[in-house]
């Protein structure tokens, strides 16, 4: 039985774990965007805050994912359910590209354009929302794109703590030394990653100002 026959035969189960997978990714990216983008903006306004914040996000990135799941296990509410735990861990990993791209996108806006706006009497708020953010949007979306693609891959590991997702097939396949089963998890995961990459790439080009 090849992998495609397996997927067709078990389509309802494949669909279920794929949706589980997608759910973890979407929720974690949503949470990371909610925190990461404002944080990225904040550190452009507050010199001296940029290094510690980017440094911390960097350190989180270096923690091996299985270890991070382990660290988060004792956290009250979060540790009680595997999917909560997986979502939190994925959000933490997604923070770095979001903070860094928001920061770099805003810092990268042509200085003379910002100065012209300031010189004409725009308030900080007007500058941020009418000039800096629109001009940084392409770079910020690129960050969301990177974070999402990484997340799709990382979310397979969530199955190790019982959070479900496409990783279930991969871990089952590993345990049973069954390559078909591994591929049944890996191929839809790769397809999801590609889909996210292409669609966010399209959005990035659409929203880039120049």
């Amino acid at each position, binding site marked *: 039985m090849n992998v495609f026959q397996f997927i067709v035969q078990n389509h309802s189960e494949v669909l279920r774990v794929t949706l589980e997978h997608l759910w973890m990714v979407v929720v974690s990216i949503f949470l990371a965007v909610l925190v990461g983008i404002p944080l990225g903006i904040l550190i452009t306004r507050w010199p001296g805050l940029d290094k510690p914040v980017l440094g911390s996000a960097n350190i989180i990135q270096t923690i091996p994912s299985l270890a991070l799941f382990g660290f988060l296990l004792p956290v009250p509410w979060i540790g009680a359910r595997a999917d909560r735990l997986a979502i939190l861990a994925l959000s933490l990993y997604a923070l770095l590209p979001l903070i860094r791209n928001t920061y770099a996108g805003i810092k990268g806006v042509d200085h003379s354009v910002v100065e012209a706006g300031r010189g004409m009497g725009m308030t900080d708020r007007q500058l941020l929302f009418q000039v800096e953010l629109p*001009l940084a949007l392409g770079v910020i979306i690129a960050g969301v794109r990177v974070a999402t693609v990484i997340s799709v891959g990382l979310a397979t590991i969530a199955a190790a703590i019982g959070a479900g997702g496409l990783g279930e097939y991969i871990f089952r396949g590993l345990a049973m030394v069954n390559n078909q089963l591994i591929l049944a998890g890996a191929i839809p995961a790769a397809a999801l990653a590609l889909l996210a990459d292409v669609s966010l790439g399209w959005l990035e080009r659409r929203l880039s*100002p*120049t």
Partner: protein
Amino acid sequence: MNPSTQNDVAIAFRGVSYSFSAGSDLLNSLNLQIHRGETFVLLGRSGSGKTTTLKLINDLVSPTAGEVIVEGRATRKWDPIRLRRGIGYVIQDAGLFPHFTVERNIGLVPTIEEWPTDRIRQRIAELLQLVGLDHSLAGRYPRELSGGQRQRVGVARALAADPPILLMDEPFAALDPITRAELQREFMSLQQRLQKTVVFVTHDLREALLLGTRVALMESGRLVAALPPDEFVRSEDPLVQKYLDAFGAKADGKRGTP
């Protein structure tokens, strides 16, 4: 246009110094008065402090000592937002917002000042005509314009809310010589009609002599001389002489041509 008959001071510097860090002064106790309706040119090489002087007027930088008086009030006593909205600002390469159309760029100050939409639209049409741009360009983006057109949009944008003072920081420096000459001519006829108080920064002696009612030479953060063009070229000051020499302008009172 003659400052001696028009004793009304629009901008005054009183003992103004500015430094990034202690010890290294970018500007050193600057004193000068700019009269209403004059075109005051700040001339000097890169790093002489002319752009800093300009930015002190709209409070983009604040003096470390002394005070800058605009319309009778020290800049540090102004609300910076109000101060800046009453001063037009034109910079090199225009500094247009790349994600705004020509129309939105020109209408920026009226928009943030919350003028009614009709009035903004009418004002944009007026300004396009004033700077010699066809109305069909209104919907274009800055990248779709030539350098000269961009600079015209920059001037139109600065004039949008009809500010009494106009600051221009090397506005024509990035243009080819022919376009530059064209814009200089138009600027002169525009200024003759509008009678704004203009502070104009350039390193080009010919431009300074052509446009200025007074030319002020700056060197290492100090004001060397501020004289009408015909007196400027006759000045005995060694630094002025040196600058004139660099441009091959003889000290015989002849005005340079662009």
